[in-house]
C-alpha cells in the first residue's frame, strides 16, 4: 500500500496519441519509428549533447531483461516513455526519467518454434494508441499503449515451416508493415501490411513470384517454391510518394545454386512498393544469383544527394556484399556505387549496377576463400546519414571466410543451406566505422575497431556519431573527423542500434548492451 502511494505521488507522464503526422514530422524529442524517421537516416536534430560536452556523458539508469538471448532491440520513445521489445516478442514500457517499468507484455514463444538463430527481436512500432510487435512464432500483435494489453493478434505465417519475425514493424498512415525471417528454411518470402485498427491483412507482396508472374523465369525448375528472399529488417518510407522501401534476403538454399539457376528475383533486392496496395513500383537487385548468403536486408536510407552535378532524391544503401550503392528514389536506377569494405568476388559494378563477377568465388566442396565472409561488409545493424556533415556512416567489416558447397534437400521446417562455412585460421575479424561521401561512396574517414562491430550507428546535430563494439564499448566520435571523444564499457557485447531523445527536456542516449538497456545523460 505504501509503495502504491509513493508511485502515485510521482508526476507520471501519460502516453498520448502518436499520430501518423507526428511520425511524419519526426520531432527529435521522440523516437517514433525504428530508424528515428521515415527516411531511416538514424540522424537526430538534437544537439544538447554535442562534441564539446560529450565528455560529461554518464550512465543514468540501466534496465535488465531476464532472457539470455541476444538483446537487439532499438527502442522507441514517445512522450518520455520508452517501448522496448525483448527476445521472442515481449514488450516493456519504461519511464525514461527513472528507468522504472510502467507495464509489460510477456510473450511466451510456444515450445518447438525455431528460427535460424536465437529468438531475437529488434523493436516495435507505434501508431495512435497502440504498440505493435512481431513475435518469433510469426504473429503480429497490437498492444494498448497505456497498459500493454493485447488489442489484436494476427498470425502472419506458419512458424512450423521456419517462418519467424525478428524485425520491428513499420507504421504507415493506417497500416502496419511487417517483414519475416526464415531464409535458411526454404520458405517463400513476403512482405505484409495489416490494418492498424483491426489486424486484418491489407496486402501481401510475395518476394518470390509464382508461375506466370514476372520474375518466375529467373528460377530454374521448381526452385522458386523454396526461394526464401525474406524481409527480416525494417525498411524506409517516403510519405510524399507513398512508397515503402524494403530489402530482401538471400535465395535458398544459401550456398548451392545448382538447382536455382537464374537471377532468382526478388532475392537480394531493394523493393519499392505502393504503401496502399503493396504493388511493385520498381526493384533493384544487388546480388543476382547469390551464392554467399549476402542478404540485402540492410536499412535503405532516403536522402537527397548531388550525383554527377545533379541534385536528386536518392536511396543510399550499404550492402552486405561489401558494395555501397546510390539509387534514384523515383525510378530505382543505379546512379553510383563502389566497394566500401574488403571484397574479392567482383571486379566492380557495371553501368547498371550489376556486379562484374571475378572467377573462383563460388562455393566448392573443399571451400572457397572469399571476402567478405558470410557476415558481409555490413549487415542488418543500421547505418546513419547526417545531412549536416553530408556523410554516410556504416559499421564495416573486412573479414573473409571459406564457403563450402554441399547437398541441399528440402524438408519442411528443416534448415536448407546447401553447404557450410569455415573461418580463415589465424585471421582477425577486423572492422571499422567508416564515413563515406554519400554521392560516390568515397571514404572520408574511418575509425578502426578491434573487431567488426555488430551494432548500428547514430549521428546527431551535436556533430557526434555513436557507435559500439562486440567487446562492449559504447563510444562517441567526432562526426566530421572520426576522432574518439567519449567511451563507456558496458560489460556485454553490443548487437543493437543506438537512439536519442528528450526526457523531461534533457537529451538521453540509449543502447541495448549485453542483456540490458543503458541510458546515458550529461552529468550536471
Amino acid at each position, binding site marked *: 500500500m505504501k509503495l502504491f502511494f509513493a508511485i502515485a505521488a510521482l508526476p507520471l507522464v501519460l502516453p498520448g496519441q502518436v499520430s501518423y503526422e507526428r511520425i511524419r514530422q519526426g520531432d527529435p524529442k521522440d523516437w517514433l519509428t525504428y530508424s528515428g524517421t521515415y527516411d531511416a537516416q538514424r540522424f537526430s536534430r538534437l544537439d544538447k549533447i554535442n562534441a564539446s560536452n560529450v565528455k560529461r556523458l554518464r550512465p543514468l539508469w540501466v534496465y535488465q531483461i531476464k532472457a539470455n538471448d541476444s538483446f537487439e532491440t532499438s527502442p522507441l520513445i514517445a512522450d518520455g516513455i520508452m517501448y522496448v521489445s525483448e527476445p521472442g516478442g515481449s514488450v516493456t514500457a519504461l519511464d525514461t526519467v527513472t528507468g522504472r517499468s510502467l507495464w509489460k507484455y510477456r510473450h511466451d514463444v510456444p515450445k518447438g518454434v525455431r528460427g535460424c538463430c536465437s529468438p531475437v527481436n529488434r523493436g516495435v512500432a507505434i501508431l495512435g494508441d497502440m504498440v505493435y510487435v512481431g513475435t518469433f512464432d510469426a504473429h503480429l500483435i497490437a498492444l494498448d499503449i497505456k497498459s500493454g494489453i493485447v488489442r489484436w493478434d494476427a498470425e502472419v505465417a506458419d512458424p*512450423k515451416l521456419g517462418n519467424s519475425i525478428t524485425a520491428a514493424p513499420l507504421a504507415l498512415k493506417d497500416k502496419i508493415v511487417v517483414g519475416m525471417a526464415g531464409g535458411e528454411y526454404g520458405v517463400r518470402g513476403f512482405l505484409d501490411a495489416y490494418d492498424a485498427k483491426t489486424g486484418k491483412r491489407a496486402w501481401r507482396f510475395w518476394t518470390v513470384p509464382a508461375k506466370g508472374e514476372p520474375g518466375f523465369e529467373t528460377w530454374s525448375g521448381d526452385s522458386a517454391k523454396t526461394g526464401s528472399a525474406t524481409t527480416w529488417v525494417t525498411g524506409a518510407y517516403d510519405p510524399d510518394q507513398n512508397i515503402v522501401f524494403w530489402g530482401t534476403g538471400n535465395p535458398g538454399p544459401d550456398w548451392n545454386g545448382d538447382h536455382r539457376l537464374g537471377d532468382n528475383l526478388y532475392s537480394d533486392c531493394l523493393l519499392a512498393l505502393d504503401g496502399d496496395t503493396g504493388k511493385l513500383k520498381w526493384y533493384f537487385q544487388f546480388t543476382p544469383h547469390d551464392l554467399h548468403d549476402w542478404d540485402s536486408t540492410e536499412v535503405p536510407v532516403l536522402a537527397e544527394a548531388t550525383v554527377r552535378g545533379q541534385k536528386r532524391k536518392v536511396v543510399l544503401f550499404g550492402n552486405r556484399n561489401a558494395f555501397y550503392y546510390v539509387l534514384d528514389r523515383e525510378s530505382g536506377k543505379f546512379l553510383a556505387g563502389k566497394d566500401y569494405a574488403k571484397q574479392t568476388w567482383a571486379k566492380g559494378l557495371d553501368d547498371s549496377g550489376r556486379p562484374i563477377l571475378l572467377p573462383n568465388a563460388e562455393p566448392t566442396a573443399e571451400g572457397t576463400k572469399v571476402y567478405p565472409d558470410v557476415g558481409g561488409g555490413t549487415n542488418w545493424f543500421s547505418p546513419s546519414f547526417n545531412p549536416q556533415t553530408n556523410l554516410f556512416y556504416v559499421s564495416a567489416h573486412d573479414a573473409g571466410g571459406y564457403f563450402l558447397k554441399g547437398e541441399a534437400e528440402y524438408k519442411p521446417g528443416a*534448415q536448407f543451406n546447401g553447404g*557450410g562455412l569455415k573461418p580463415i585460421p589465424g585471421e582477425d575479424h577486423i572492422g571499422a566505422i567508416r564515413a563515406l561521401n554519400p554521392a560516390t561512396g568515397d571514404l572520408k574517414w574511418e575509425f578502426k575497431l*578491434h573487431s567488426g562491430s555488430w551494432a548500428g550507428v547514430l549521428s546527431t546535430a551535436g556533430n557526434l556519431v555513436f557507435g559500439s563494439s562486440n567487446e562492449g564499448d559504447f563510444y562517441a566520435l567526432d562526426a566530421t573527423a572520426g576522432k574518439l571523444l567519449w567511451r563507456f*564499457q558496458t560489460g556485454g557485447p553490443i548487437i543493437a542500434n543506438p537512439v536519442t531523445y528528450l526526457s523531461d527536456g534533457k537529451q538521453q542516449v540509449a543502447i541495448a548492451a549485453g542483456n540490458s538497456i543503458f541510458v546515458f545523460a550529461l552529468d550536471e
Partner: protein
Amino acid sequence: MRLLGIFLASALAALAQVDPEYVIPKENPSASPEDLKAGEKLFLGQCASCHGPKGEGGKGAVLGQPRLRHAPDDAALFVVIRDGIKGTDMPGGYALTTHETWQVAAYVRSLGRMAHENVPGDASRGREIFRAKGCGGCHIVSGEGGSLGPELTEIGAKRSSKHLRTVLMDPEKELPEGFLMVRLVTGDGRNIRGVRLNEDTFTIQVRDTSGHVYSFVKPDLKELHKDEGKSPMPSFKSLPAGETDDLVAYLVSLRGKP
C-alpha cells in the same frame, strides 16, 4: 489467448515429431557405420553452417572435442540436437525424426573422438621427462602446474600424436587458437612481454611470463607490438629421439577423467 497458445504448442509438438512418451536410451541405438554416414549428410546440411563441416566451430561451438559442455552423454546429446539450447543460438532439429537425431548424434560424437593411437615410447618415462624439463612450469595437468601455456589435462583426447610431436619440435608451427604474445612499453618506460588475456579497441590485458597481470589503455602505451605466430615455448628438437617418443606417449595418455 492463453488457450490459443496451448493449442499452438501442442500442434507444434506434434509436428516436431517429439514423442513425449519416448524414453531416451542411455546409449545411441543408431551408431552403425551406415548411421554415421547418414548422420554426416544431415550434419552437413543442417549443422555445418554454424559448427563447421568437421565440427571445428564457427558461429556455433567446437564439436571436435571429447567433452561437450551441454552433452556429457549420448542421451544429453540427443536432447540438445532435438530441442536446441535455450538462451543460445542453437536451434532444435525439430524436423528430424528420432532415428535421424540419433544419426546426427553419432556423427557429432565421432567428431570429438580421437582414437587411442599406438605410439612408440613409454608414457611413464615420458612423465618423468615432462617433470625434469620443467614443462609443468607453464602447463597445468590435472590441476598442477603453471598457467602461461595451454592446459594439457585432456590433450591426448584433443590432439593427435603427430600434432603433439610437431609442437614439441617447433612450437610456433601450430599455435593454439587465439594465442598471442605481445611486447609493450608503458608510459613510464617499462618493458613488458607476455600473453594477451583480452583486448578491445581501447584497452589490452596482459599476463607477463612471471604471472603478473596488467591492464592498459592503449593510447597510454609508448609501444605495442603483437608477435603474431610467436611462442615462448622452447623447442625440444635436441631431445634424443627415444625421449621425444616417451614424451609424446605421455601426452597422448593424458585424456582427463575416464
